[in-house]
């Protein structure tokens, strides 16, 4: 941390640091916004932290997706406090039970302010590591591992019920999930507090760059954890709606065209023959057909599952959508996908259980699968069909069967290949990406953000 020359200089530093960190995380902040942010601080004053947070968010952000990153960065540059209740002197084990007691009470009361305070104490008492507590750093993982808040569920439930209230009523069945959500929120508070303490030690600029989790739509599919995949799946419907509107707009633009002279003149009769409102000829386009070929083998399944769900959610944009999954054999899964709408989490497992995707071994074989597609399902691809192939093109050093791809490309209107691997890795090891890329247009597609950009651009209308 730089030594503050005075409160105002320090404030300017913080604001610049915050803006820099946001930019490093892909939030485009211009000078105009920075000026507005400074004016907001002036109008709001520094006395209260939450209005400051909202004010800075309102001036610096332009969309909802950036908020999670913003909150983490804000916590670093405008921390709740400096140091902590005991500055790491808590000896750990002794007061663990006591802290759990107080945590249970706070969870039962759903007292957010108290929970935040306890999160700070927990990190202080149990999160420090190194030769003396906290000398090397602070860990939320270690804190939560010692405190085990998830094991308080039964205790908190019993507390709430014992207090009576409307515990016996209908809403009682919601209680467990409600407590789980509170515990989840507490875990988030612990993580934020640990980040803040580490930032105090190591300089917040560095932490802001490295330790702030990117928003889910910027996480690499190939490295996304379970939680991030779940979060992504939740984003499928809104994303699909957004894309559908963009496709509709593209379709309208394509259809809007020439002036229909006859109808214009007919319409002008009411204005004494003066053609005041030109009538545009509307073209009723035939909706395109879509075929998806998805590698669902372990390494890329997160990517394929997400893309399949997204395309399924977009299905009414097309006259026909057919989806095929493969590992080393290929099978049609269109039906499974339609029925899978109600339970997107289970989709991948169901496909792997119900479709025939593997022959005598379990690893990907692009050549074999693509060959089987060309042979068995060749009729699915015609001059109105756009084909998307999803996968990393890692063939396990088997024959890539370029002839099959050439054949499909010859029949289809377009073939695109979306590869979740970063471009610099294409062609390394067993990747046949460069060979396939010579035959069909291949795009790098590592994140949900990239995917939606590609879909909006490439999908036929």
């Amino acid at each position: 941390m730089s030594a503050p020359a005075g409160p105002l200089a320090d404030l300017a530093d913080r604001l610049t640091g915050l803006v820099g960190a946001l930019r490093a995380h892909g939030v485009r902040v211009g000078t105009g916004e920075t000026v507005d942010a400074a004016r907001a601080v002036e109008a709001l004053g520094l006395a209260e932290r939450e209005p400051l947070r909202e004010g800075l968010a309102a001036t610096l952000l332009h969309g909802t997706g950036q908020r999670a990153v913003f909150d983490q960065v804000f916590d670093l540059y405008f921390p709740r406090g400096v140091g902590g209740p005991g500055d790491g002197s808590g000896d750990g084990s002794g007061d663990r039970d006591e802290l759990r007691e107080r945590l249970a009470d706070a969870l039962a009361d759903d007292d957010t302010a108290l929970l935040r305070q306890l999160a700070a104490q927990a990190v202080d008492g149990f999160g420090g590591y190194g030769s003396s507590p906290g000398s090397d750093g602070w860990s939320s993982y270690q804190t939560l591992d010692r405190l085990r808040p998830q094991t308080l569920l039964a205790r908190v439930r019993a507390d709430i019920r014992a207090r009576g209230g409307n515990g016996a009523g209908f809403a009682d069945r919601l209680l467990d999930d409600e407590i789980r959500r509170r515990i989840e929120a507490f875990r988030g508070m612990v993580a934020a507090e640990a980040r803040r303490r580490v930032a105090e030690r190591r300089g917040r600029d560095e932490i802001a760059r490295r330790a702030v989790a990117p928003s889910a739509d910027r996480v690499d599919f190939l490295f996304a954890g379970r939680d991030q995949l779940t979060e992504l799946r939740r984003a499928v419907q809104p994303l699909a709606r957004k894309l559908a509107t963009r496709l509709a707009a593209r379709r309208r633009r394509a259809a809007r065209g020439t002036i229909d002279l006859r109808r214009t003149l007919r319409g002008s009769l009411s204005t004494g023959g003066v053609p005041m409102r030109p009538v545009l000829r509307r073209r009723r386009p035939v909706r395109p057909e879509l075929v998806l070929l998805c590698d669902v083998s372990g390494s890329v399944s997160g990517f394929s599952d997400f893309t399949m769900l997204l395309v399924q959610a977009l299905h009414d944009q097309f006259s026909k959508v057919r989806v095929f999954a493969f590992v080393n054999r290929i099978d049609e899964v269109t039906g499974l996908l339609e029925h899978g709408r109600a339970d997107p989490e289970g989709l991948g497992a169901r496909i792997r259980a119900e479709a025939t995707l593997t022959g005598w071994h379990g690893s990907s074989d692009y050549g074999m699968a693509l060959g089987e597609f060309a042979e068995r399902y060749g009729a699915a691809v015609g001059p109105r069909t756009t084909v998307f192939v999803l996968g990393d093109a890692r063939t396990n050093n088997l024959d890539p069967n370029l002839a099959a791809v050439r054949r499909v490309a010859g029949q289809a209107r377009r073939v695109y290949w979306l590869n979740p691997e970063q471009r610099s890795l294409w062609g390394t090891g067993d990747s046949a990406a460069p060979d396939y890329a010579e035959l069909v247009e291949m795009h790098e597609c590592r994140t949900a953000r990239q995917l939606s950009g590609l879909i909006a651009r490439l999908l036929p209308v």
Partner: protein
Amino acid sequence: MFTSVDDVSTRLAETGYLASPAVATTVFLADRLGKPLLVEGPAGVGKTELAKAVAEVAGARLVRLQCYEGVDESRALYEWNHAKQLLRISAGRDESWDDTRTDIFSEEFLLPRPLLTAIRGDDPKVLLIDETDKADVEVEGLLLEVLSDFQVTVPELGTVTAARRPFVVLTSNASRELSEALRRRCLFLHIGFPDEELERRIVRLKVPALTETLAESVVRVVGALRAMDLRKVPSVAETIDWARTLLALGADTLDEQVVRDSLGVILKHQDDIQKAAAKLDLDAL
């Protein structure tokens, strides 16, 4: 217009709008910084209502531009009254064309639409550009122009500059991303679903006859539904509707029967209803 963030909350509450701290802060800043406020969020969380409440608090006239697919300059900005112009042309057969032309492109034949209305005159106004995301992208260019200098040029009449800038609220359900340029022009406010405490207060305010306990249960169930992975989760509007329905049904507590019978008020899709019924342990519907 406002002296502090708290002042915003208090006065909005007096009109029946309960603002979260984020809403109050951003409204305060939009007024102080003189910038348009872009409010984004799911349907039914009080975006439109917020603009109305601000207008009421400010004693300002609410001018509303409701966007839809195909809305254009002639609906948003101004239009010449063609029919009236034609009548005028045919009425004045013996005067010169120049005179006629000057006459038919005068104030009398102008139909001002919301954007022009909002910048004319010097009475206080709140301009609500509602559901901006429904308009075509081209309209954003127009909005950007008007919101940048608050002036509009009517070629035949000259330039109108706002003597007094309106307080501008744009809303969007985010069905598509608005252009970066328009976003940069605005302060950004996301209104999501309120926390339990706020939603309880909203329900109590809108449906005062509902008991405290029932209001609490209603809000808890709605919270649980929102945590489910549904096609369309209930919004504040649905919470209020449901509360009113329960009142009409004469229910004073929730039980399986009542919830089962009224689930259709909160959830709009059949598969959502089924899924929720299963998760809430209601017996087969």
